[in-house]
């Protein structure tokens, strides 16, 4: 008997887009890299992209939360945006939309040996969020060396490096970023060749926020035990050390949806609002 495969429009769309995820990420650069020179820095984006970058359409939500924490002002806009976006998409933002994740995905295509991280290391993201984004700015202000923007590799790569280069080209006195930032940038650039998404998995405070929504977001991964043949192919497909059949909406998942490629389609992208149609694949 041929098993019944549950198909939905969303599922079909996800299957079609999956092979071109990198192109979807590239297309989103047109939103984040400010090709029209809008510089809407009065509004936050839902992605990790430094507002000091010469090519930034919106303000970085993490930078804004940290700065507002230093000012002792509640960041209604940044928190409201992240709650609303997180409730809809969860970490789909990380896997499909974020430019800093895209950069790491591109470098991961370089054929170098890749090392895995212990899963528990992902919890360090919450330490980063509470420590460098909330507590350090609140108690010590934006001048503290552990203030998130002072150690952020995205800021170093997207803002400090272009500024240093433009100063050098213009023949002005070059203002170098602090040593800690340069060291962190160096370590990050080294790490992305030997680990998949080291920033996202180890330290990203924005990913930490979105991951909290994974279990309640409108889009989620569904595991159907009836379809599973226990071949464990999803373990091979997941590059982030998750066992998707056990925790399909794991906190560490970036929702790249690679695990949905498993042939019995035991794992599928679903939305809480859709109806499930069933069809027989043999027909």
């Amino acid at each position, binding site marked *: 008997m041929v098993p019944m495969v549950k198909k939905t429009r969303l599922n079909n769309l996800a299957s079609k887009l999956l092979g071109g995820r990198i192109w979807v990420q590239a297309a989103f650069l047109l939103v984040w890299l400010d090709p029209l020179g809008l510089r809407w820095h009065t509004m936050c984006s839902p992605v990790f992209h430094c507002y000091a970058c010469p090519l930034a359409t919106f303000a970085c939500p993490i930078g804004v939360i940290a700065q507002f924490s230093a000012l002792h002002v509640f960041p209604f*806009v940044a928190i409201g945006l992240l709650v609303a976006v*997180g409730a809809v998409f969860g970490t789909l933002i990380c896997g499909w939309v974020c430019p800093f994740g895209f950069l790491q995905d591109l470098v991961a295509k370089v054929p170098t040996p890749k090392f895995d991280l212990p899963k528990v290391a992902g919890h360090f993201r919450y330490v980063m969020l509470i420590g460098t984004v909330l507590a350090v700015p609140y108690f010590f*202000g934006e001048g503290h060396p552990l203030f998130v923007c002072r150690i952020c590799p995205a800021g170093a790569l997207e803002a400090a490096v272009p500024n240093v280069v433009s100063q050098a080209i213009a023949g002005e006195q070059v203002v170098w970023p602090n040593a800690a930032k340069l060291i962190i940038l160096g370590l990050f650039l080294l790490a992305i060749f030997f680990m998949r998404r080291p920033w996202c998995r180890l330290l990203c405070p924005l990913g930490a926020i979105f991951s909290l929504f994974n279990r309640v977001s409108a889009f989620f991964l569904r595991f159907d035990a009836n379809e599973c043949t226990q071949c464990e192919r999803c373990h091979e497909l997941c590059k982030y050390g998750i066992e998707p059949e056990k925790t399909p909406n794991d906190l560490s998942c970036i929702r790249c949806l690679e695990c949905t490629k498993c042939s019995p389609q035991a794992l599928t992208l679903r939305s*809480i609002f859709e109806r499930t149609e069933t069809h027989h694949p043999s027909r």
Partner: protein
Amino acid sequence: MTSKDVVLAMTKKTKIIAFCVLVVLGTALLAYGVLFHSTNVLPQQGDESAAIAKSEPALIKEASVGGVTRDESGKIKQTYTGKAPAACPT
């Protein structure tokens, strides 16, 4: 409808409620921040009477270039006079 279907339906209902609450909460916070929330900001030089109320979007823009700081007395103060800095000093 089997008992399993009932459990799944309840889970889905709970998820929809949680989703709706979060979206409404997020949208309300966002709307309040954009439309109503403002903070008094003192100029770099001058007394408290010269403070101006800045909307949250304007404060985000100021914060993104390091244009505001919290002084020892807890007041928010501009870090420049005249033209705003081009980029965040960090």
